[in-house]
Each structure stands twice: as structure tokens, then as C-alpha cells.
């Protein structure tokens, strides 16, 4: 099969985004998922860019990146003791948005399925890129901290603009920002990854750091 997406997409994640917690979708829904997945896999154009920077700390909760002060307790905790970070931006390109928009006219049930699959795909792609970065970091004797994105906790969303400028995100991989700092294409992720000389055991970030996790219907169990 023609594919632009050779990465493993965990079905469980798709089901979870669709609101199935422990249950499995029925045959009709599974068929729809398979069909939508086939289309997405053929049409997405995953692209990523990342860049390493040395950072300095102004105080416990403020770091300086290329002269830009970033104040955030949550981020600072996440990358405490790091003096080097990786800035990362990844996207699936505009195909998921187009499929979702189209399905919103023809069948909303397809729209939510495209939405769920592409959400699982961008995660899977991040995981893959994260692995590449880990390899590069390990060669230099660094360990990675979990990905941390603008908007997590008190890490200001405004930092999206800085990431956009530093990585030349629009030109290089086509991620643009709206005036309200949403990313377009919507299936895009930006993040800071801390590089540390010490190996600290920590889980993948995600539900664990989200302040809505207690009430969220889509949280991982």
C-alpha cells in the first residue's frame, strides 16, 4: 500500500480519542476507521525540524534562550538542571484538516474519526522524532527529559511565536500561527525537550502534567 507514514499507529490511542475507554468499537466503526486511516496514511506529509540550544537560568523559574526570557514553573521543573535544550516542531501537513473539513460536510462521524486517527498519528510521529533526538543526544552523552509544549501548565502559549521564529517553522515545515496562537495545520506539535547529563527517571509527559486530567474523558487510564 502507498504510504507516506511508515510509523506504528496504536489503535488503542485512536479508540481512546474517540471516547472508548475500555470498550472496543463495533464492526461498522472499525470499518470506517480502517478506511479513514488508509486515506490519511496515503496523504499526510509528516515533516519535522529541531534545533539544539544552550540555555542559561536567570532564576529558578526563568530561563534564557537566545536572549529570550521564558518564565514558567512547570517548564522549569520539567527541565530543571538542564543547560541545553532541543526545540522541536512536527506536523502532518494540511491533509488531516482537509479530510476533517470535507467530512464535516458529508458525515460528522467520519470527521471525528479522522480527527482521532490524525491525533494518534501526530503522537506516533512525535514519538518517532523523539527517538531520533534521543539517539543524537545520547551520542553527546545527554539524556532527554519529556517533551513539554507551550500551553502545558503555566508555560505561556506566547512562546509559540518564539519557536516559530527560531525554527523558521512556516518556511521549513509549513506550520503557521493564527493571531490567537493556534497552529495550522492543526495536527502539529511544538515542544521543548531538556537535555541533561543525569538520567532522571520520568514518564512521558502528557496526561500526567495536564491540569484537566481529573475530569477529562480522554485521559489515559
Amino acid at each position: 500500500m502507498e504510504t507516506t507514514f511508515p510509523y506504528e499507529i496504536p489503535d488503542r490511542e485512536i479508540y481512546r480519542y474517540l471516547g472508548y475507554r475500555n470498550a472496543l468499537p463495533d464492526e461498522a466503526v472499525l470499518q470506517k476507521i480502517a478506511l479513514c486511516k488508509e486515506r490519511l496514511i496515503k496523504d499526510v506529509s509528516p515533516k519535522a525540524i529541531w534545533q539544539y540550544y544552550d540555555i542559561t537560568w536567570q532564576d529558578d523559574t526563568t530561563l534564557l534562550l537566545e536572549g529570550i526570557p521564558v518564565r514558567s514553573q512547570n517548564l522549569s521543573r520539567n527541565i530543571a538542571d538542564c543547560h541545553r535544550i532541543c526545540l522541536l516542531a512536527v506536523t502532518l501537513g494540511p491533509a488531516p484538516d482537509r479530510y476533517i473539513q470535507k467530512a464535516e460536510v458529508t458525515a460528522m462521524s467520519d470527521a471525528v474519526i479522522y480527527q482521532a486517527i490524525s491525533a494518534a498519528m501526530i503522537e506516533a510521529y512525535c514519538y518517532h522524532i523523539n527517538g531520533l533526538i534521543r539517539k543524537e543526544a545520547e551520542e553527546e552523552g545527554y539524556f532527554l527529559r519529556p517533551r513539554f509544549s507551550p500551553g502545558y501548565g503555566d508555560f505561556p502559549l506566547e512562546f509559540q511565536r518564539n519557536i516559530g521564529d527560531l525554527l523558521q517553522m512556516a518556511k521549513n515545515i509549513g506550520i503557521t500561527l493564527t493571531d490567537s496562537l493556534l497552529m495550522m495545520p492543526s495536527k502539529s506539535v511544538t515542544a521543548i525537550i531538556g537535555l541533561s547529563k543525569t538520567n532522571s527517571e520520568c514518564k512521558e509527559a502528557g496526561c500526567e502534567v495536564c491540569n484537566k486530567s481529573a475530569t477529562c474523558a480522554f485521559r489515559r487510564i
Partner: protein
Amino acid sequence: MRQDLREKIKTDWVFCDGGMGTILQAKGLKGGELPETWNLLRPQDILDLHCSYLNAGATIFNTNTFGANRLKYPDNLEEIVVAAVDLAKKARIQCGREENAYIALDIGPTGKLLEPLGDLPFDRAVELFAEVVRIGAREGADLVLIETMSDSYEAKAAVLAAKENCDLPVLITTIYDEKGKLLTGGTVASTVTMLEGLGVDALGVNCGLGPKQMMPIIRELTEIATVPVIVNPNAGLPRNENGATVFDVGPEEFATYMEQIASMGVHILGGCCGTTPEHIAATIAKVKDKKPVVLSNPHVCRISSYCEALEIGKHPLIIGERINPTGKKVFKQALRDQNFEYILSEGLRQEESGAHILDVNVGLPEIDEPAMMEEVVTRLQSITSLPLQIDTTDIEALERGLRYYNGKALINSVNGKQESMDAVFPLVQKYGGVVIALALDEDGIPSTSEGRIAVAKKIYAEAAKYGIPAEDIVVDGLAMTISSDTDSANVTLDTIRRIRDELHGHSILGVSNISFGLPHREIINSFFFAMAMQNGLSLAIINPGNEPMMRAYYAYMALSNQDPQCNAFIERYAAVPADTVTAVYAPGATSTATSSNKELSLIGSIEKGMQESAIAAVQKELEKRDPLAIINEDMIPALDTVGKGFEKGSVFLPQLLMSAEAAKAAFEVIKDAMKDTKQESKGKVILATVKGDIHDIGKNIVKVLLDNYGFDVIDLGKDVPPEVIVDTAIDQQVEVVGLSALMTTTVVSMEETIRLLKEKKPGTKTVVGGAVMTQEYADSIGADCYAKDAMATVKYANSILCPDSL
């Protein structure tokens, strides 16, 4: 005196400069620092950079204005651009190149994505570029070079801005990835088709890739372009070295590739990221003593969408005619109600049925046709990849359609009347397009093929005055009913044949016109269609949902050896069971709702979310029961069961929506049956995704369910300003307003909307939802209800608008 650049680029070597950003970085420009500020802060560095390229031999060199636009320089744009052109002029004098170097006003992308995918309106994009063009042209730039464009729509905005605001030559290069695609999906062919239509003087590729990786793209460019091609590669692919971006291809290697590229028919050569004056000098040294290879590609009739180009004349193609109110009551009502969902779904249905092009006709006396044309074209092109045909007699609507179209459109139509040609051809000249020419003029419709051919020739000649090539004209042979003149099919077919054989042109027919007034028209239509194709018909305007027509098409393609191995025919018909080869083409008949389910009751069909069986069941029920009884006794209970299941967690979102879709399909059938009875609504509900937010999937889920439960939903769409919501609530006396927001940044607009509603229309109930919403959050912004999911909104609307039903 410098040679006219428009002439020079046709045959002579023209060398562009190389990397600018990468060299400024080497001079100390920080990541995230705006390069154009150096025009003011470090002018000597910019001057030196220009001189280094001029001394290397560049013919065209770029002002340092790549990112200069009002978004990035809200306060001092003018100053930045004036300084940039001034530095370029100084450099040219300093290097003694007054006579033979050209200053290119460099224009890069805005960094924003255009509507409807993004939030930058097309007009705003044009204005952002226009401002820079006006300043640059005034200050003395010799040409406009638009570069690194990764979105065809933004490229179009930039070209229009350049053309509308100066008379300078316009050159443009776009950035393709290793698969030969723009970031927004355009191909080489679709991009070239659109840009040539817009009248650029040269086009090509820059950035993204090194010369080696660009080869397949360059090959395609040189195979189809009819204007000179520009190639400005990076010095290889970027590589990360100790945190710095480096490019590996040195000047000699680069020049060797460029020499090869030149031999493919490219004589406008330069570089992009990572290239240096040495790269340019080495390239010039390699090629300058050779004779440039000049392309001589024939002009081919092509139209395009954002992502595909379609050649006309190679094989017969189908234009779907259903987006047209003529004779369609429901469509007319949809236009009056601005029911875009209905209009768009007509388009998508035709795409599914096998249309290659979609006709867009939204003319109705009582509506604002230009505005409607703009709206439908922009919405349609964001969800279909098919090229569009702009079909209108209103010249303003035609211009709006062409302006906002993301590609090169088919235009329906011009005719041999001087008045028509005077109005239409200037628009074709400006925006590009393939235009349908009706073979009639002031003397009416010629009754012979000679007469029609003569009119066609007249139209070709007039078009040529505007520089519109004969290939961009498709002649309508005019199908007229045989019921009033039994010779008319012969005349039409002869006209089609002569357009092909004598004019070597392309032809089109509104096929079904042939049978007006006759019974079972598709019998005549489908045979006439096959005969017309046999006589050389290039384009057919038909209803692709009409199976006899599609059969004629697929059969003709197979019979005329235009369907390799009969693949398309087999793919379409192999799986269709013999007993369903009827007048209705139903590709999904065998797969989605399997025949074993056909016996399901209406309740069962809705609960299981099976549309087709729901339709079948409701049709059966209507034979024996009252429509209202079916709604109250079957449909509502079925929806309730599913809704309750969803609340309990035993039914999940996809099923909930599939049930809603099945119910909706059944409702349509019932509505049809109850045409004459006035239908009761439970009341009006406004839904909107608030200002700043462009993700409206959540809102749309809610809409489907509210529709289902009998509410009259006024869907204001996404990115809706508070005032619009409030004004609508007041005008239409709406009691319940549902607001959706995805991000904390847009909840602010939600709060503002609620505040304004309380002030201007006190008593209106607000219900809010969205990814970041919580009960506390909803309380804090003064919402009346927090809906954790779509069913919660239905419940709330019920509790306010029809408390008795609970």
C-alpha cells in the same frame, strides 16, 4: 541603458544572487532576529553583501526585504523597504553595474496561512504584499521577485498584488519538497498552470532542496513551462552541526549541477540558502560561454485546482452540473438561506460519482450573486481537489469567482457578441482561465455548422488581441433539442467534429439540452453523449449522478482505447450486482449497508447508525403510517436510546453520530412526504466557534445532534466576532446561544461574547463547551451552562426551549 528585462529573460543568461539569510547569520544575525532590520542597523553589511554578488557576476540581485511586511514591521515598514532599495541602488553604482544589473524587490511569504485553512483573509494578504510592492516600485526596483512560496493561494495573492500595483516584470519561485509538492499540496503542474495563467514573466523553484534533489522537479518544470524557468537551489540539504545549520555542497560541485540544469533548458540560474558569491561565480564560469538552451514547449490547455492540473483535450472530461439553481427548488432555497452545507454536499456527491470538474452557478435574482460566488468558491475549493468552472453571466460575480479561486479556472462563458467579449476577456487576461465560447453572436445561434465555426473563429481572433491563446478557448457547439428541430443533433455533432478537425480546438456541450420535451430523456442523452465523444467532444456538462450518462462515458472510454486494460470500467462495474445495474449508480450498495441488514426496522437502523436501511425502512413505514407518528413513535425513541447510551458510556461518539446521520437521512424522506404541512421547530439555537478559534469540529458535532432533536440551528461558523453573534441573537430573537472555544486564548472571546449578550440582549441563555472548558471556567466567565459533551447541550436546549418534553 539596461536592456528590457522581459526581453532578456526570454533568451539570455540571467544570473540571480545566492543566499542572503545564511550569510547574514554568518555575519552575526541571531536566530529569531529579523534580517531586514539590518537595512537600518547594519547597512554596510547589506551593502557589502550586494557587492559580493554583483562582483561575482549576478544579473539580478535581491533587496533585503524577504520578510518585510506590515505584520512583521507594523511601525516602520516604509523605512525598512526604502532603505533596502536604496542600499541596492548604492551597491549597483559602487560596483559599476548600472548598465546590466537589475534590482529585484524580494518578496517572501507572510508566514501566515490563508483562510479558510488559516486565519489570513486573501484580501489582507494581497494588501500586505501590495504595500511592499508600491514602496519598492516607487523607490526604483527593476522587477518583483516573489520567492519561497509554499502555498499556491498565497503565491496568487502576491502575484496579483505585484500586477495591480506596478508595471515591473514579475518573477516567482516556489518551494517544493522532495516529493515535488508545495507544503499545501500543489504539484509542479498545478502551480505552473495557475502562475502562467496569472501572467508571470518567469517562474521556477528555490530553496528547500539542493540542486541534485531538485532534478525531478526541474525536469517537470522544463517539460511544461511556456515561460522561462528559474532555478535557485540551496547548497545541498541542511545538516545540523553542533547546533548550527550547515550546507555541504561547495561552489564547484554546485556549479557542475547547475551546468546540467542549464542544459535542461534553464537559463535563469542562482542560489538560495547556503550558497555564496563563490557558488554563483563558479556557476557563471561554467555556463556563460555556452548558448542558453531555450524552452519551446507548446501551450497546452490546462486548468488547475490547488493540488492538481487537468489537461483538456486529451480525453473527454465530465463537468458536474448540479451546483446550479436552475429548475431546482431546494437548491434555490439553500441559496436564499445560505445553506452552504447543502451546496457543498452537492459538489462532493458529484466528485464521488466521477465528475472531473465542478460547475459553480449560484445565480438567483434576489441574492447578492458576487458575494455568494466568492463564498461558495472559497468553501468548495477547501474541501474538493477538483478544478472549478465559474458559471455566471454577472461580470462582477465572475471576477470575484476568478479572484478567489485557488488555481486556473474554467470560465462559463463568453460568446461572439462584442459586448460579451469586451467584458469577459479582460478578466481572462488578468486572472488566467480556460474560457468556454458559445458559438453564437449578435445574429443569434447559427443554424449550420459553418455559421458556428465562423463565430468560433471570430472569438479566437478577438481573444488573441488580449494575448489569450486559442488553446485556452473551448468552443460550445450548442446542443439544442431535437424535439423542435430534428436536424439539430446533426448540426451540433458536425460542429464538434469541425472544431476538432478544422480548428484543432476543444469543444464542450451541455449534453442534456438535446432532449428537452422528450420522455425518458436519459435514453436520448446518453446516446447523444456517446456520439458527441466519438465526434471529438472534449468536455461534457452533465449530471454525474445520472447512471445512463456515466455508463455511456465509461463504455466509450473503454471502446475507444482510452481506458488501459478497461481498468476504470472494471473498477466501476465489476462489483455491481446484476440486479442493481439500474438507473441509480450506487457504489456503496454492496459494502456499507450489507444486504442482510436491509430488513432492519427503522428503530434498529437508527440505533445501529445505518443510513441506507433507515431510508428504506422509513419509506416502507410511510406507506402505512402517518409521518408524525413515525417521528414520535420510532425516531425520537431510537435517538433517545442512543443518547442515553452515550450518557451512560455504552454508546460512543462515532455511533452517536452515525445514528444521528441515519436519523437525518430518514428525516429528509419524511420531510419530503410532509412538504405541504408546516413543520414545527422546537426553537432557534445559535451555534458559533468564537473569534480567534478556527477549529469547529466540536461545534459541528453539537449541530448535528441539535438538528436531529428538531431545533432550528443557526450556525454562524468559526472565528465569529462577538458582535455578529449578538446581532444575530437580537435580529432572529434567539434565546439559546451555544459557544465553543478550544484554547485558553480564545476563551477570552467567549467571555466577551457573553458579556456583550448580557448587555445587549439580557435573558439570553448561554451554553459553552470546548477542550479547555470546565464547570469552574464556565462559571467564571458567566455562562449559564457548561456542556461537557454534545448530548449535554441538547439536554440544556430542551430544558430551556421545551421544558415540557422532559
